[in-house]
């Protein structure tokens, strides 16, 4: 039997493709899993199989869940008229981690990019426009990255929604725990422009 057909080698090869792992760290992880077969390897394999069988994008917001409509979209309590637009599912999960936002989300699936040829039709912008009226949205919060592509996308969406709904965006500036000495010029400029009266 060749090494390629060896299931352990196959697992190492697959694990090495994960972000943050290389062949050496994948090999260590696989060895650890084999040693913890009952406590880790078997439940992990079962959990991965379950996710592989059930994970799918929410048809409404683009979040990843185990049903066609995710829990956030199903929750009536979160239908409070606030809709937070994010670039990616990872951004949605980051917002949820904070536990502060109690409205619904819309995942665009990327940003407009002149260099990569990503236009509005490649993103979930038409679905966003249709949700505004269908769900009685009163405010759209554009929580897009503070990058040139992210803000270009935010301005594009703002143009589409102007006069239809209240629009806001996340503030930009000094992060909590950040020291001015270590900030880049752009962040300091943005923070100064967005200063608030005490």
């Amino acid at each position, binding site marked *: 039997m060749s090494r390629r057909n060896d299931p352990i080698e196959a697992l190492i090869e697959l694990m090495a493709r994960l972000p943050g792992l290389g062949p050496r760290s994948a090999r260590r992880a696989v060895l650890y899993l084999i040693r913890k077969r009952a406590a880790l390897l078997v439940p992990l394999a079962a959990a991965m199989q379950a996710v592989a069988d059930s994970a799918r994008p929410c048809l409404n917001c683009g979040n990843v869940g185990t049903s066609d409509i995710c829990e956030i979209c199903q929750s009536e309590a979160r239908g409070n008229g606030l809709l937070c637009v994010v670039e990616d599912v990872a951004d949605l999960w980051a917002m949820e981690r904070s536990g502060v936002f109690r409205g619904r989300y819309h995942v665009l699936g990327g940003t407009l990019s002149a260099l990569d040829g990503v236009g509005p039709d490649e993103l979930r912008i038409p679905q966003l426009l249709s949700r505004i009226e269908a769900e009685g949205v009163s405010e759209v919060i554009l929580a897009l990255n503070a990058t*040139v592509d992210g803000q270009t996308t935010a301005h594009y969406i703002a143009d589409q929604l102007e006069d239809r709904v209240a629009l806001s965006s996340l503030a930009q500036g000094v992060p909590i725990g950040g020291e001015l000495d270590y900030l880049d*010029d752009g962040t300091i400029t943005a923070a100064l422009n967005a200063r608030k009266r005490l």
Partner: protein
Amino acid sequence: MEWRDTGILLGTRKHGESGLILDVFTPGHGRHAGIVRGGASRRQAPMLQPGAQLDLAWRARLEDHMGTFTAEPQRARAAIAMSHRVTLAGLNAVTALLTFCLPEREPHPGLYRRTETLLDLLDQVTLWPLAYLRWELALLEEMGFGLDLSCCAVTGATEGLTHVSPKSGRAVTRAGAGAWADRLLPLPEVLLGHGAAEDAEIVQALGVTGHFLSHHLAASLGDRPLPAARAAFVERLDRQARR
């Protein structure tokens, strides 16, 4: 192989998990690509935004290798551009057009200086559209499709210029245009350096430069369509002019 230069960041692409391929415009080495290891990291990503002025050191074993960059920030411009819709759209148009039309590793020091000056004006929101129009004229000139608006191509007159020939790029007076007037492009006064340079007139002038960009420059580059970012900037400026 090794060199050091200043440069304007035109764009980035991810390379592996944490690396970036930078596309920069430098005075001495033209448009040049290179890899920045760890460029997508939290520490480096904020400074590697399009429009940033960078101090660059490029190294490669052979001249034709892509090579690696060490990039130190000199001036960040993205935050200034992001503060206004027109300048953000303008920054996108500038970087997209340069990426579109400049060949790699061919120095264009004159165009570089014009581009650096234009980007340093990003905080002058009211002046910027006119500065952009002047830059587009310089871009056409540099690429070999400059407009000659000094005198009428038919009569030689220097006054009363009203049209531009869509083929030669030369100015024409109303009398010189004669029955051909409807086939010529209108010549807005702002292109002659006259008038109040209102946004609406600049949009009209960008229509003229746009014709030469798409019908002459783009045609010479394999008839590719102009970058959508330029059309988005013109549309944005038009929207502002209508308000």
